[in-house]
């Protein structure tokens, strides 16, 4: 934490200097390391307190949790197998954030995608497996993309606030999918609320035996690379970014703001839909009424804290996967509920968002203590 203060200690109250000099890579790396160290410490301290308050030894419990999460290759594979849809969903939300569109409807779009994939998988085929998987994924993407594009169009054309509209769309979409799964599309041989199982050709093959990690991992890698390239390197991504940072500037330099808004939302919904399809094609094999169980919300949270940077998003999702898996392990080793991971990620995200000020105050405090000592 000693490398933390970034502000000039002689002027503690000064706001961030306007034209910052380009800091050297050492300074940047140091600052990043301090930030990561700070969040890790906050997370560990809070986890210890919560575990201790339940009457367990914090250190040993966390260790056994981590053992469960990343103890051996199969466990690592299992940990990240759960996270595959989350990577995709978080990246999908991030690409819309980048162009100033807040797609809070990721959860609903995941449900729509999952249902579309489950139906394509169950009622079409069996086909040649790659083709079937491609169809499922595309159907899911279209379902999510259409919802998001519609709401994006409402924002672009009529100024309908997309934060609120996507938020409300979650409930409508999830209830509609639930209706279909409980009513007309229900698998009558199973308990209520599930659709027919997809054909074997609509499921990704397992990559690591007995881990649930499937070849869907390649889909995730492709999505991540495409989103990164689009967001950081492409002309289209630049247009979207400009639209997000300043619509007025964007339109004055000839960027079609309307098109940028609708298309970025459409892509975001498409990717979230694909995330939903992975729930079916890479793990569950069918749609059921609580299939996404909050992954879309986690994706929104992570895209926000990663400031919609693709690389940061991927890192945050990885950290969250390990945390979640460790919380599961902790639940098995002790009686600490696995919701521990939700509590921790919330606290860590708030801590990360407050980090700049915390470091600033820390620097101020050190400065004040230093001047006390001198006098």
């Amino acid at each position, binding site marked *: 934490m000693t490398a933390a203060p970034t502000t000039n200690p002689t002027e503690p109250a000064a706001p961030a200097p306007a034209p910052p000099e380009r800091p050297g890579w050492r300074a940047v790396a140091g600052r990043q390391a301090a930030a990561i160290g700070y969040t890790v410490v906050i997370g560990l301290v809070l986890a210890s307190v919560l575990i201790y308050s339940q009457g367990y030894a914090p250190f040993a419990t966390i260790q056994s949790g981590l053992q469960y999460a990343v103890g051996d290759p199969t466990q690592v594979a299992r940990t990240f197998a759960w996270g595959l849809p989350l990577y995709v969903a978080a990246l999908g939300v991030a690409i819309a954030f980048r162009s100033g569109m807040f797609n809070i409807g990721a959860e609903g779009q995941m449900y729509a995608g999952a249902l579309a994939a489950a139906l394509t998988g169950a009622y079409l085929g069996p086909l040649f497996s790659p083709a079937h998987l491609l169809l499922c994924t595309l159907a899911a993407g279209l379902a999510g993309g259409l919802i998001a594009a519609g709401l994006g169009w409402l924002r672009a054309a009529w100024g309908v*606030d997309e934060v609120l509209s996507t938020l*409300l769309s979650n409930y*409508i979409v999830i209830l509609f999918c639930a209706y279909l799964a409980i009513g007309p599309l229900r698998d009558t041989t199973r308990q209520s609320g599930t659709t027919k199982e997809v054909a074997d050709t609509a499921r990704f093959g397992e990559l690591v035996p007995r881990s649930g990690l499937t070849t869907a991992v390649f889909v995730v890698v492709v999505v991540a690379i495409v989103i990164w390239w689009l967001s950081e390197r492409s002309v289209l991504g630049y247009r979207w970014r400009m639209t*997000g940072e300043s619509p007025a500037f964007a339109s004055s330099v000839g960027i079609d703001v309307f098109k940028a808004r609708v298309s970025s939302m459409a892509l975001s919904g498409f990717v979230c839909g694909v995330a939903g399809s992975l729930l079916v094609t890479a793990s569950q094999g069918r749609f059921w009424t609580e299939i996404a169980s909050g992954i879309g919300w986690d994706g929104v949270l992570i895209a926000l804290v990663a400031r919609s940077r693709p690389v940061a998003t991927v890192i945050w999702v990885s950290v969250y996967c390990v945390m979640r898996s460790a919380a599961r392990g902790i639940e098995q080793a002790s009686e600490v509920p696995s919701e521990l991971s939700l509590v921790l990620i919330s*606290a860590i995200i*708030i801590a990360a968002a407050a980090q700049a000020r915390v470091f600033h105050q820390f620097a101020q405090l050190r400065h004040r203590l230093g001047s006390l000592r001198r006098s």
Partner: protein
Amino acid sequence: MDWLDAFLGSGMRFTTPILLAALGCLVTSWTRDLNVGLEGAMIFGAFFGVAFGLELGSGLGAIVVTLLAAAVAGLLFGILITTYRVNVFVAGIVLNVFGAGATVFLLRSIYGVKGALADDGIPRLARIEIPVIGDIPVLGGLVSGHTVLTYLAWVLVGVTVWAVRNSVVVRHLKAAGEHPEALETAGGNVQRMRILAQVWCFMLCALAGAQMSIGQLSLFTEGMTSGLGFVAVAAAIFSRGNVLWLAAISTVFGLSSAAGVQINEEVMPPQFAQMIPYVVALVGLVVLARTSKVDQVRIATPQLQAD
């Protein structure tokens, strides 16, 4: 006319949490820190209403303690978004996820149950039966037989209307949002006003949650607020600062929620009935955008460019 009585009575019961939370949200919109975390604050209110109720054995006692806890939470939230400059939108979204996770965590670690907490020891707020009026059809269901929180919500509507016109506090709150420099010059404290707005919002959301858990029922279930917090955000935004509009919109949402519960399965599938309040809100949002001439309240989303 029994169904109408039941429908209106149920509608009033559903209106209460929406109205309370929306009144809280309205105040945060004055300071330009519109809180989108109502849902999270409400689920905490619902949980602690039940938890303190079990502990104290008294519904009113539980409400008082929950209010105190909410005030502290609002203070923390306010400090986070002012002193620590956490974006209020991010904080609100986190609060929603945190509320959903933390209440389940507490439910399982304190009571060792999953899903729902029902116990004979959980008190229930008394229903106040108003004599004479209570017997009149239609009006009776509307006015009589509600918990103290329902009446409080409508009293607060009146108080807020009065305060908007006459009180210095509201003027300071609005100034803190619209002209912070002017408020500072006039000797006010912008930061204190912004925190105060969040404290008020949290307290009202706690009441809204408690109304759902120990007012309408006497149990807590995971995720029992089921999106009503977001409906309340919608109500606060739709009202565009007009308190009476806010009350009217909240009532519409409350009645549509009641319709969702009351409509018979033979008329439409329950999922469609449950959709009604969200569809109403979404349609309202579109209509509002089409008809409004002034700039709408945009939720204060963060700027995400590199810093």
